[in-house]
């Protein structure tokens, strides 16, 4: 940091308005107004307009490169004329080469595959502070960037470089206006002061502060509360590793460190050299014109170029030639010495030359190992150079990557000169710049090479994307009477039949056994007909292992099939952690947990349901109970879906009436909820609608005439078809309520569904209090879909409201016909008992993932209301929920 900058840091921005004279404030306000008007007018310009102006400015900059460089040298007394000319040319020609084809007006980039368009919005007025070290090149660079992006700039050059900078601004301004740029687009503060800067940094019409090079100003810019690009000091470590091409490395370092007498803040400061090549490297430096200081000379140099009080470089040394610095320090060097090299033995205040030195003095450090070298480089990086630049010369890719990993630097330059490398577009493909972002480590907002895109607000025009949807079901489904015969086509050495004691007693297992391929070894694993427990699963997996099963046949209701799914999972992937796999999720396809794909064993799972409701034979869900912990674990993943489903109604012919009704209404609820689900698709709709039609037609017959084969067959198909719908579209609020209520009061799932169903339909058909965000649907359609169902069932009605009402009424009639209680109260649950339970039930229902796809987002109070409606009982005339007021 240069001594004068410490003064700048002490200036308090809020004081500026109080201290500045009225005339000065009027002057500054005038500049801002002029810039604001220019920026406003500029918004009307097209890409062609700005490109035309930019090209003219670049040509003018190239033409004036030498003139401006001379002015800079004369005024600042820093640097090398020839290098300053080059810098001016890089700032124009190289920058132009990078930006000429870039779009900065209107649409700047399009991503059709993402339905995204990026559009440019100018910033408006930019207040720019420019440095003494790279004065005219920085101004040229910023002028070109500003025009390319349709912004106006007020410049505040470093006072010691004001004349050359104001001349650069004048040249750029005149050529820009001549080619159509708005008047007032650039201005340069007359006799800029820190108070002026403070005032402008706080000005409401200044959109961005771009402060380059002066740490105090950078800090002030960030403290102003305005968006700022502040880029500042560095302390570039260089690792010269033993595999490097020494000739190239030494030349590159000399080129870089002597370029413009080391005024570029990305230039090399301390070179850490592997011991093996240390002497050879120093010899090479000496051969090419560097003076290697001995210990005494190093001490003299330290005292001359580093301020002992602050530990920072002396301003008088900045940008001076090596021979002049040697003369100040009292060193005797050869006349054409380019560089002074001073060996150091550490980094920090005790080693003064380890800091940033913007002049041709380079510290060198011998390292005994890669580890030591990297450590020292980290030390240098952290001694004032965080986020800036680091350099490595090496042919060892591993070391290069390690270096990149441990350096906190926006630019890590490999096998090329640090300063010119960091400027970009000369030695590498970095974006050309005269402002180096140093990231948060340097107190900056970016690590980028500041470029045109930092002078733009980039707007993103995001169109609604058509979300990918899915429809996943088992590979094969066999249905209708005697579909079990299809078992013959599945060869197996060893098959386990998982079933319940009752089904075995009823002889159903024997039916299955008869149809399994001959010569197959068959073992029957009988499990309790209840939600599967961990112990039951473990026993099943033991049997699978013992018999080396290659096929599992699940014969039973939902619980048996669920058990078989989990047995298969644990058999194939013994390491599967069921608790972990049961982690909550919002979208089945975006689950955080991953189900195992590596399998120790493989077994085909064939599911045959003996009830017509759950549809577990085609679903990707399984529920497990851990009695020890009292917890219920719900597993959901498409890998759980059985490989084959056999939907044979002969296994349901003897279902009792109550079970027929309960499972039948469960099936209807699946279909109705999938039908209005936010995840519904034409694929699931076709299944849901067909299932509803079949239930309304055949469930009453199957209930009244259990031996009616057609009715049983159709209900069995309906359950499977509804399950295909909800496996892919999910269910809704009805299931959430039924799960909570059923578990609390021991009511069978189908019955609990039945108690809620009419109320939930009315609720979903009404105008939602809160819409559920859903990229899958367009508008609110639940009521219309209910109306479509009503049409399908031929229920009549002219309006959507009438049709919804008729559907609810038809559902209630069906429930009555099946002998379901009309209310929770009818179950014998007292009002007081229910009142006590409801708050907790609402909480449990809200946590249930089932409703996440519900078309209407339930509020907790609405869940409570729905519970109470179910308690009071159904009847279309009862309550507002049964009187849908559709969207």
């Amino acid at each position: 940091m240069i001594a004068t900058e410490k003064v700048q840091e002490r200036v308090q921005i809020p004081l500026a308005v109080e201290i500045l004279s009225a005339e000065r404030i009027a002057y500054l306000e005038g500049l801002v107004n002029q810039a604001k008007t220019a920026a406003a007018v500029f918004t009307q310009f097209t890409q062609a307009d700005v490109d035309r102006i930019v090209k003219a400015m670049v040509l003018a900059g190239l033409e004036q490169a030498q003139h401006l460089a001379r002015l800079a040298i004369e005024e600042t007394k820093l640097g090398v004329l020839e290098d300053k000319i080059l810098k001016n040319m890089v700032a124009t020609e190289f920058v132009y080469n990078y930006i000429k084809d870039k779009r900065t007006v209107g649409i700047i980039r399009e991503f059709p595959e993402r339905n995204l368009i990026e559009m440019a919005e100018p910033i408006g007025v930019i207040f720019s502070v420019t440095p003494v070290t790279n004065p005219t090149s920085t101004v040229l660079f910023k002028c070109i960037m500003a025009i390319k992006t349709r912004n106006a700039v007020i410049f505040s050059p470093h006072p010691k470089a004001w004349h050359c900078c104001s001349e650069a601004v004048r040249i750029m301004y005149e050529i820009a206006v001549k080619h159509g740029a708005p008047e007032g687009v650039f201005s340069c503060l007359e006799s800029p002061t820190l108070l002026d800067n403070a005032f402008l940094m706080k000005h409401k019409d200044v959109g961005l502060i771009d402060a380059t090079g002066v740490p105090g100003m950078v800090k002030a810019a960030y403290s102003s509360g305005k968006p700022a690009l502040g880029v500042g000091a560095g302390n570039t470590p260089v690792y010269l590793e033993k595999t490097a091409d020494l000739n190239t490395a030494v030349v590159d370092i000399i080129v870089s460190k002597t370029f413009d007498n080391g005024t570029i803040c990305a230039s090399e400061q301390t070179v850490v050299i592997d011991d093996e090549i240390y002497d050879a490297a120093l010899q090479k430096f000496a051969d090419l014109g560097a003076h290697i200081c001995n210990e005494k000379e190093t001490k003299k140099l330290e005292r001359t170029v580093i301020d002992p009080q602050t530990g920072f470089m002396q301003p008088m040394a900045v940008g001076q030639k090596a021979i002049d610095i040697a003369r100040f320090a009292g060193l005797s060097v050869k006349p054409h010495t380019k560089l002074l090299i001073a060996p150091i033995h550490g980094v920090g205040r005790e080693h003064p030359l380890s800091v940033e030195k913007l002049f041709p003095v380079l510290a060198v450090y011998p390292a005994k190992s890669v580890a030591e070298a990297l450590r020292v480089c980290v030390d240098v990086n952290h001694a004032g150079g965080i986020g800036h630049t680091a350099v490595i010369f090496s042919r060892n890719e591993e070391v290069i990557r390690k270096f990149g990993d441990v350096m906190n630097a926006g630019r890590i330059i490999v096998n090329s000169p640090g300063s010119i490398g960091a400027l970009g577009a000369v030695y590498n493909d970095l974006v050309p710049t005269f402002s180096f972002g140093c990231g948060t480590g340097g107190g900056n907002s970016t690590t980028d090479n500041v470029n045109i895109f930092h002078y733009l607000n980039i707007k993103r025009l995001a169109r609604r994307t058509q979300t990918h949807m899915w429809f996943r079901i088992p590979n094969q489904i066999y249905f209708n009477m005697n579909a079990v015969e299809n078992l013959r086509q599945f060869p197996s050495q060893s098959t386990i039949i998982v079933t319940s004691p009752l089904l075995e007693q009823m002889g159903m297992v024997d039916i299955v056994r008869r149809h399994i391929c001959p010569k197959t070894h068959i073992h029957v694993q009988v499990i309790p007909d209840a939600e599967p427990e961990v112990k039951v699963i473990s026993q099943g997996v033991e049997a699978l292992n013992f018999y080396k099963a290659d096929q599992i046949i699940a014969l039973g209701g939902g619980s048996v099939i669920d058990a078989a799914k989990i047995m298969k999972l644990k058999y194939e992937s013994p390491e599967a952690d069921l608790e972990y796999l049961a982690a909550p999720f919002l979208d089945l396809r975006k689950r955080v947990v991953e189900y195992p794909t590596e399998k120790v064993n493989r077994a085909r799972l064939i599911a045959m349901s003996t009830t017509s409701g759950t549809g577990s034979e085609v679903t990707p869900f399984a529920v497990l109970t851990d009695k020890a912990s009292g917890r219920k674990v719900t597993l959901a993943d498409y890998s759980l879906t059985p490989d084959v489903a056999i939907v044979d109604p002969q296994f349901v012919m003897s279902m009792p009436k109550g079970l027929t009704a309960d499972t039948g209404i469960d099936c209807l609820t699946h279909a109705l909820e999938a039908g209005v689900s936010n995840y519904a698709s034409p694929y699931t709709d076709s299944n849901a609608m067909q299932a509803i039609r079949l239930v309304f037609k055949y469930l009453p017959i199957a209930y009244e005439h259990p031996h009616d084969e057609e009715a049983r067959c159709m209900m069995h198909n309906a359950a499977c078809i509804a399950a295909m719908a909800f496996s892919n579209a999910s269910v809704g609020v009805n299931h959430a309520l039924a799960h909570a209520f059923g578990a609390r009061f021991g009511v069978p799932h189908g019955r609990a569904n039945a108690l809620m169903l009419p109320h939930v339909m009315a609720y979903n058909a009404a105008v939602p209090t809160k819409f559920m965000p859903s990229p899958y649907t367009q508008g609110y359609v639940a009521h219309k879909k209910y109306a479509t169902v009503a049409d399908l069932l031929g229920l009549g009605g002219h309006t959507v409201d009438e049709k919804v009402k008729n559907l609810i009424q038809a559902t209630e009639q069906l429930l009555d016909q099946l002998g379901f209680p009309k209310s929770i109260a009818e179950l014998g649950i007292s009002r007081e008992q229910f009142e006590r339970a409801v708050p907790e039930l609402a909480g449990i229902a809200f946590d249930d993932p089932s409703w996440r796809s519900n078309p209407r987002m339930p509020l907790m109070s609405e869940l409570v209301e729905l519970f109470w409606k179910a308690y009071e009982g159904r009847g279309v005339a009862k309550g507002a929920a049964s009187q849908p007021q559709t969207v």
Partner: protein
Amino acid sequence: MKDEAWRRVPRLSHKLCREMVKLMAMTAVFLNVDEARIVPTLREAGEKLDGTEREVTLDLSSVLRIDGSALRAMEELASIAEGKNVKVNLRGVNVEVYKVLKLVKLTRRFSFVN
């Protein structure tokens, strides 16, 4: 009911309507602004505001872009109009020009009509 309510609404006589139209014509100035002559036209509009008109309407339909001098002229016109309590309507302003006026905070000083 509707008919009764309608009958109770006080209505202007044809004579009164004719008088009002005449008055409106007297108190309004209409000017077409040509893009090539924005500044002189705006100055002319300013000069016409002698206090007898209550409203001046400038048609900017043919103005595709405005520059800094036009903005200054508009600001001057706005100041004159405000001083004389005259409403300035801008008709047919395209959105690009409207955005420029918005950025320099001039929109609040004019009324915009289609």
